[in-house]
Every structure is written in C-alpha cells, then in structure tokens.
C-alpha cells in the first residue's frame, strides 16, 4: 500500500488477478442468467384458467376442470397426472412431460399440460406409444 507521498501507485499481480477473476465471474453469470433459456416450467390450462409451476420444485397441484379436480405432480423435473375425475383415467398413463415442447392432457376434463423453457436440442422431438 502507498505509505505516504512517494512512488506512484501501480497495480500488483494479485490485484490484476482478482479484478480479472471478478470481471470473468460477472461476465459468465450475465451470460448464464440473461443469455440462456428460461428454466423449464409446466403450464397447465383448463377452462377455469392457467397455472404455471417451475419444474425444479417438487409439488402436487390441483387444477379444476368441468368434471372436477385433476391432480398433477411435479417431481424430479417432470410433470405427470396422478389423479383425474374422468372415467377411463387414460391420462394417468400418458407419461411424464419434462422437456420443452412436451405435452400431456386429460381430454374429458379439459386439462392440458405443456412444458415451456429450456429445450435440449439433443433430445427426441417426440415419442409414440
């Protein structure tokens, strides 16, 4: 440190390293946060409205349709139906929606679930069961 009038101040090696590291961290975080796609989220819609939940937080959600409440579980980054008032309950075996563009639905109860946000380009576009 300058201890009084004397030699002009010069940046030292560790100063430069710290400044560069801080600038690098700032740039990297800005790119990661503002440049990347939004985190995945499940968007659930019915005639009663629209609900959005991030896939990163586990929860069970109840969404009302004309026949009654449909239960949707979000667990381990995927969303799937766990109960619905429809007769055949086909929607319960429609699988998990976890990638951007995936969708599942309970047609009798008018509940639709789609995933928005991060998309993996290396993922399959669709699967047929």
């Amino acid at each position: 440190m300058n201890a009084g009038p004397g030699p002009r101040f010069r940046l030292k090696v560790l100063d430069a390293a710290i400044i560069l590291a801080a600038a690098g961290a700032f740039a990297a975080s800005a790119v990661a946060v503002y440049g990347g796609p939004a985190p995945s989220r499940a968007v659930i819609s019915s005639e009663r409205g629209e609900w959005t939940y991030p896939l990163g937080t586990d929860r069970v959600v109840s969404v009302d349709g004309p026949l009654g409440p449909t239960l949707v579980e979000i667990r381990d980054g995927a969303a799937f139906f766990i109960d619905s008032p429809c007769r055949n309950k086909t929607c319960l075996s429609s699988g998990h929606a976890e990638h951007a563009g995936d969708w599942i639905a309970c047609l009798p109860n008018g509940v639709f679930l789609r995933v928005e946000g991060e998309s993996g380009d290396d993922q399959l576009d669709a699967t047929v069961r």
Partner: protein
Amino acid sequence: MGRLERRERWEAAFSPVPLALSGAFLSLCLLFMPGLAGRAAFFAAASFAAWLSGRKVSPLAALVVIAGIVGANLLVPVGRLILAWGPLRIHQESLYQGLEKALTFEALVMVSKASLGPSLRLPGRFGSFFAEALRCYDRILERKATVRAATFFKDIDDALVSVYDGMDGTDAAPSGDPGNRGRPGDRFLPFAALAAGLAVALAVIAR
C-alpha cells in the same frame, strides 16, 4: 405535533431496554405469523408505532422496497395467472409470496425503528467499546461542516487528525442514569407483547 416532539415524548414514555426487548419479541412473533393478512396487519401496526416514535419513516422508501421485492418475485411465475397485460404476467402465488416477504421485510424495519435508538446501552466490554465509538462519532459529526468540496481530501484528513488526537484516553464511560429507570409507558409493553403472541398463536391454530 412534530416528529422531534413525538421522539421526545416516546423516549420519555419508554425505557430503552424494555422497549428493545419488546421489539425483539415482536420481531420473533412476526416471523411466526402465518398468512398474508396477519403480516399486513403487523406491518400496519408497526408502521404506526414507528411514526409515533418520531423516527424518520418514509412511505415512499417503503413502497419502493415493497415494489422491488414483489417485482423480483414476479420474475418467476408460480401459480394461477391472474393478470396478463402485454408482456406483464402476474401469477397468484408469486404475488402472494412476494407480498408476504416484502411486508415481513418492512414490518421488521418498522418494529426495529420503533423499539431501538442510540440511547440503548449495550452490556459488558462490547457495550463500553460501542459507547466510546459513539462518542467519537459525535465528535466526527461536529467536524463534518468543515469539509468543503474544493479541499475535500485535506479537510477530511484534518478532521480525522483533530478527532483522533482529541481522543487521548479522556473518553471515560459516562456516569449517571443508564436510562433504565421505569417510565410510564413500560407497563404497557408486556401487554403489547402478549397481544402479539396471542394473535400469532390464534392465527397458527386457525390455519
């Protein structure tokens, strides 16, 4: 009644230590209060108390903070979509959580403002060290008027030399009343604490 007059009346009505202890207890109650309505009520009551205590309370500053916290929480959409207006989308749970956090944040600030002040004496060696620092702070404040923009560095430095050299071990702890004699408002503090505790308990049970 002006702010300074309210401040004098508040300090005359409550002893610093019981008031601070009540504030600490009320802060804890707030943290355990479930639901938005309860926290909003707490915020309203604490804001009124802070205003009554004569501390500087800026409604605009509080609103800006609340808006900032709510706005930040709205960035992550959670729950039912309740308003869509162009790019602005407000989801119910995000709004609720944002309001809850914002009102808690500001209510704690208001409780602190109402229950704390420079007249509070901290105990022990830490307390006497803090008191010495406060006395030195008063002397620095006295010198701040001598600092001018044109000779900023020199004036600051002269002030530092003057205050530091003036400290020379003459800062004995002040004698006399530590300010903990009973004051007329002290007897109401336990009731306020009890009322807050009961409100929290009832709110928790009712949930």
